């Protein structure tokens, strides 16, 4: 039983990070029908931005500000940096291709991904950087009830993710911007005809998606410590998978997909096999998609004849 609960916690932590990344993919796809391969690298840059702030404020060993302030600043810096980067990428690499066949912005995204990765390699080097959270946060704190061992950092990560997801859902469902986003995702031309500034809505979408990715980057750094130039590749892949499995274009779907993959990985490693973990996770996801071809919460696109 305690094993099960432990894996639940593991899965929840991992899943909420994947969900945040998946949200960015889903939102952009919903509006532009574009798979933004560069999203994973935006996440990587966010993680590095957070690391930069950490070092600037005294590095893992000698913080000049109280821990809470440092962490808050890291989040802020990462989110703003990623958001700005996302907007810039959109203007530079995707906007000129707005009316091109779908596959052109895909390759442009690939180019951006290559460029960001090599820039990170050039500027930061190939070494692994570590947030070394245990140096400034006492991991013994947190919830230790019986079999449950959740350190305070994991609580922070899970809590922040859910807070961000709730904020996003509220944004999309209650605000005017959210309405505009939903309208643009549904039918871009009709939305433009209704007077919605499509360019600004798209910019806002990219900004929000990238902000979430940046937050995810800092979270990963805090819980898993390791930050390096290639981290965006695999995380982006998992995020993309989560978005598709949950139903691409659907925001609750992305969250569900992320959690599904997180739990899947945790439970399969825990109960079945660590060697073939990927194998079983993918097999299960294939089955899910075969049973529900549009993803868990996706709507089958109504094809207009």
């Amino acid at each position: 039983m305690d094993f099960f609960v432990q894996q639940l916690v593991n899965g929840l932590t991992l899943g909420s990070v994947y969900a945040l990344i998946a949200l960015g993919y889903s939102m952009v796809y919903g509006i532009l029908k574009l798979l933004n391969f560069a999203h994973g690298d935006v996440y990587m840059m966010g993680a590095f931005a957070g690391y930069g702030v950490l070092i600037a404020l005294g590095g893992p060993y000698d913080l000049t500000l109280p821990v809470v302030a440092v962490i808050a600043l890291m989040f802020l810096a990462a989110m703003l940096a990623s958001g700005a980067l996302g907007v810039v990428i959109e203007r530079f690499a995707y906007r000129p291709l707005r009316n091109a066949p779908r596959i052109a912005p895909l390759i442009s995204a690939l180019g951006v991904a290559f460029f960001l990765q090599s820039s990170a390699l050039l500027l930061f080097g190939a070494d692994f950087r570590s947030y070394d959270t245990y140096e400034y946060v006492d991991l013994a704190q947190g919830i230790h009830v019986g079999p449950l061992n959740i350190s305070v950092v994991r609580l922070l990560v899970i809590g922040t993710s859910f807070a961000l997801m709730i904020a996003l859902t509220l944004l999309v469902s209650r605000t005017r911007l959210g309405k505009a986003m939903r309208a643009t995702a549904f039918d871009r031309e009709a939305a433009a005809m209704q007077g919605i500034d499509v360019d600004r809505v798209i910019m806002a979408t990219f900004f929000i998606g990238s902000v979430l990715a940046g937050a995810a980057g800092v979270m990963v750094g805090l819980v898993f410590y390791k930050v390096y130039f290639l981290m965006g590749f695999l995380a982006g892949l998992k995020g993309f998978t989560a978005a598709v499995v949950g139903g691409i274009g659907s925001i609750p779907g992305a969250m569900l997909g992320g959690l599904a993959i997180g739990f899947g990985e945790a439970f399969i490693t825990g109960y079945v096999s660590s060697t073939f973990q990927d194998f079983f996770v993918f097999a299960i996801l294939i089955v899910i998609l075969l049973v529900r071809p549009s993803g868990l919460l996706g709507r089958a696109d109504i094809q207009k004849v």
Partner: protein
Amino acid sequence: MDEHRKEPTPPQPPDTTREGGPRIGVDEWVARSGERITRRAGWTAPAAEAFERVPPWARLALVVALAACVPFVSDSEYVVRVAVNTVLFGLLALGLNVVVGYAGLLDLGYVAFYGFGAYAYAILSSNQFDLHWPTELTIPVVVVASALLGLLLGLPSRRLLGDYLAIVTLFFAQIFVVLTTNADRINVPFVDGPVDFTGGPNGIAGVDPMSFFGIELSRVEHYLWFSLVVFTVVIVGLHLLNESRTGRAWRALREDPLAAELMSMPVNRLKLLAFMFGAAVAGLTGTIFASVQLGVFPQNFDLPLLITLYAMVILGGAGSLPGVVLGAAVITISLELLRDPGNARLLFYGAIVLGLLAFMRPWTKLAVVAAGTVVFGFVAYFVVDAVHPAWTAGSIDGGGLGGLLDGWVIHPESSVRLGNGAFVLLVAAVIALSQLKGRWRLALTIPTLYLAAVVWENRLVFEPSVTRILLLGALLIMLMNARPQGLMGTSRVEIV
């Protein structure tokens, strides 16, 4: 008062030949009608028209003949090896073209077929299970097996559309990598002890070279010629396929799956056929690869290869046979060329100069920019030298070009930090450039060019391995912006 009482001009039909004009049409033949009607202008016109007049089979023969002469032109094994790699990538691109370009299915698991072909050949022709089947038997068996695997993987395509199919095929590719990495200790019933199927992370080394009817392919040149033969056969076969009913059906499927289905085309069967053909070509290429490398390893077939392959296909223009081969050639050769810092420097400056030539249309503008950059450089160098002599203390080596630049580019002894800062500044400047217009744009171009030289000499030239990926990324972005349909692809048309 005449302006107010002008006759309204009769509505003109939309100009489909003007770039940027509304594009209305229903298929690629119509979309390309503009190209067919327009007389070519400019100095490339005679060359382009002469090229068009040559029949396709002659063009193919010419290219193949040129490629086959490579071993005679250069006695470097490396060049021949790069040629072989190019042909192999060309083959892979052709196969992927069938799936992505003809049938319009986003298959992200393509490299798994490649790997399957390679591993199957390796298992049948090495010491792994002590099987040494003759090549004449192995190749057909592997091709058929790959096609069957393609059929298997294509089955989900019946229910899944678009990106969902992409994800499932991606899963298959990852499963393949996981299996090959870990299938070295599988417990098979009725067999004593764990069986080593794929050699695990160590792969299978010591694969037999190919041999046909007694003639063994022992040198790289032999492989080049053999793969050119295979390449010719495949490309002719695929061309014939494209012209056939199946090809037309695939095109219909790609353009509008729903309409195709309504016209009673066997959509599912077509998709499976596409998968099978693609898989067969990939499996065939895999066997050649395994015997060229004389071994197979799981790292050979992972995602970076898939990404490179897609870049080749899209760059060249999905749907166009010569296009994807061109894309494969361009990317493979540029990546190899860029390994060498000397080449890379020439390429970098050459591309900048030629790009300026192409885009600065009135030559006065070009002259202004060129002169401005040179002057700016000297001024900047002079100023920096006066203020911070340490910053110009370093030197640039590397032949004639380097010497020229020594007195022009700011170059401190230890240039990493300056290089990094300049790099970030350069990226910002390029982005700003793309958003500006007119005189401001012209004015900003000058310092940007100088900054590019600074970044190159201070940072990028010392890291050729990183630089080539950087340049590849930049190339992809620029090319997609300039020509979204790829080098030779057909402009796709949206139905209004």
